[in-house]
């Protein structure tokens, strides 16, 4: 009976207006332009025993020794109690055994996460991004309206009545529209997205060892397992048949990408002999820049240089490095890469 009264009173309380004292709390929580600087992080959190409560006693901390307890135990523990494998197949949302998230260590798809905060990533966010925003700003004087691009998909113009709701035509001279360049704002600064390292060895036509060596070199440089690719079409001139595995690629994202680019710019590029820089015409008009390294330049990577003798002679491959950015034009991508430290030479083609 008392419980029912409690429930009813709680339910009814929700329909009453909040008491006047709460208004003061609400008003004080409102942030105006004149509010003081943000309080410490822990002050904004709810009160909880984790923050306010005391931890375990010092004696308890000193006595805690799970490894020691395990060593002193004579009997074996039943494996069924301590071994767990997450379900192999997803049986639907109502099944009692749900697979854990891929970020959980117990998941089958768990890949150990970031191991460090890369220096290049920090430099980008602290220094390069704000400089980029300043450089890419285009001022619009007051009274002028921004230039509006004309219709990209062309209408059908003419006498025929059937032109009215006909689907619009594509651009002149081709099928695909070029990427639109959005103005660079603080939300829109071009960033490094991913890096693809690719190598193809024609020695692999005759010997399988060449492909294995290329794979090991790529793995050593990039910290990512290389994927092999089949040849799609047979070309007799090159002596190549469809289905042969001749090329490898590695996709680098996040931490691996930043570490690879740091190594490339700070260690490998300064050691390259007579290297003028990346060609100015490099770029796919969508903000992705590619460069190539020769075999002797790949050998300059510290991971390859450390055990250079272990690789069979002349089997260390050269590679193509494609840097994908979130920029939509070549100039934007080149500006970002110049900030990172990659030099360009020759005529810049947009």
């Amino acid at each position, binding site marked *: 009976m008392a419980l029912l009264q409690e429930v009813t009173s709680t339910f009814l309380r*929700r*329909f009453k*207006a909040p008491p006047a004292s709460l208004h003061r709390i*609400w008003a004080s929580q409102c942030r105006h332009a004149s509010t003081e600087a943000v309080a410490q992080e822990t002050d904004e959190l709810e009160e909880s025993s984790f923050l306010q409560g005391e931890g375990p006693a010092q004696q308890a901390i000193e006595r805690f020794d799970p490894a020691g307890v395990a060593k002193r135990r004579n009997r074996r523990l039943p494996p069924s109690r301590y071994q767990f494998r997450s379900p192999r197949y997803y049986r639907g949302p109502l099944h009692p055994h749900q697979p854990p998230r891929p970020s959980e260590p117990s998941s089958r798809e768990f890949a*150990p996460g970031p*191991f460090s905060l890369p220096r290049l990533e920090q430099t980008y966010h*602290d220094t390069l991004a704000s400089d980029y925003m*300043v450089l890419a700003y285009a001022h619009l004087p007051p*009274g002028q309206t921004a230039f509006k691009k004309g219709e990209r998909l062309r209408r059908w113009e003419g006498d025929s009545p059937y032109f009215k709701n006909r689907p619009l035509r594509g651009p002149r001279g081709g099928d695909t529209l070029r990427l639109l360049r959005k103005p660079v704002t603080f939300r829109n600064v071009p960033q490094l997205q991913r890096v693809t390292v690719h190598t193809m060895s024609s020695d692999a036509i005759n010997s399988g060892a060449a492909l294995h060596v290329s794979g090991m070199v790529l793995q050593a440089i990039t910290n990512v397992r290389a994927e092999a690719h089949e040849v799609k079409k047979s070309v007799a001139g090159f002596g190549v048949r469809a289905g042969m595995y001749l090329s490898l690629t590695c996709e680098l994202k996040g931490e691996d990408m930043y570490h690879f680019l740091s190594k490339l710019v700070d260690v490998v590029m300064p050691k390259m002999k007579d290297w003028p820089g990346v060609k100015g015409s490099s770029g796919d008009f969508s903000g992705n820049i590619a460069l190539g390294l020769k075999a002797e330049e790949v050998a300059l990577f510290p991971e390859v240089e450390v055990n250079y003798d272990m690789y069979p002679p002349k089997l260390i491959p050269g590679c193509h490095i494609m840097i994908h950015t979130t920029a939509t034009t070549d100039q934007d991508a080149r500006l970002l890469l110049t900030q990172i430290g990659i030099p360009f030479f020759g005529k810049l083609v947009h």
Partner: protein
Amino acid sequence: MNAGQKSARRIAASNGPISRDTVCFSCLHRLTHPSRRNASTAAALAETPSAPTQQPRHPNPPVTTAKAPRKAYQLLASPVLSRPPLLTRDLTSFEKAYYLYQKRLNERLALPFTRYFYYKKGTPGDAEWKRKIKVRETPARDIGVYAAYGDEGWNDEVLVGDRTAERESVVEALVRDAEGKAIIDEEVVGDENKNGLAVAGDAKTGEGQRRDLTKVEVERPVERVTEADRANDMRSLSRKMDRTLYLLVKNREGRWRFPQDRVYGRENLHQAAERILVQGFGIDMNTWIVGNHPIGHHQMNYTSGGAPAPRLAKITPNRLVSTSRDRAEYEQEEYGEKVFFMKGRMMTGQADIAKNEYGDSEFRWLVKEEVEEVVTGGYWKSVKDILAER
């Protein structure tokens, strides 16, 4: 705000009695206390009956022509010269613990280390490797002693208060590894007479022992906290290497400001900023002005007792601006100052206050919080959003 009230009222009316589950706290308070009236609500109520038939506003309205005679303002350029952070920031305790745990999990999932791919059999490098791996049980050098595939592989989490993830421990482990020592000091086999450095009776135990024949000198990493940090030398560029430092000067009025000067002749802001750095601090600074346009501005009107008090300024040609010499010295009545801040980056060099031509007494390289402390309130409001947090 008008629209918000209307829609909240609509929701409240349609769902029956007003409850905290249908309407948010602040709207609920406003609806239950309708007696509170101020000028804005009166104006809003007056507006709502008529249908809005205003013309759409110009997105970029032009500057309206002034009806009164034009007022002149002192036009100033001010380079905000910054030394970007040279070091990465310190990791938080959570990040350190997280990275250590992820590294240990990686040990449990990665394939075993292929020793013979890196060390040839029988070489001294191989012997050194075998000796070291015996102690630390894992190829990784920064995760402490941990055997991922051993009996204690389950014990991958470190206990509270463990210092394995701290920067000092990692540096110590790497330096010891480079010197050829094991990660932790092992017990030395030997007898008392020869101070424990002799080889044991049987050859096998003595085989793995390391003898200090030549001491390997390994260069330790330089400290993150420099002399300038300890002495809190505010003129040094080596202070607070993980933060952005900004160059401020104490002008002849005794106020701390970014270096600033009038724009002369036909020079633009970018050129003025470069000239100010040279005239203020000498030519021993390797700097770069980012972009040709300002990143912020500050306006100060000359007033006395609330009323505008224009000042008569004498403008003399500047020796470094050739176009300023086109016009002889002239006078101008100025109603205030308009300062435009230009972003500058410092690469190498140092400021030399002895070469200053503006009468500035001293300079300092300050972090954002320190700038707030020395600068006046109005100036800080104009400047705080153009300074970097780190």
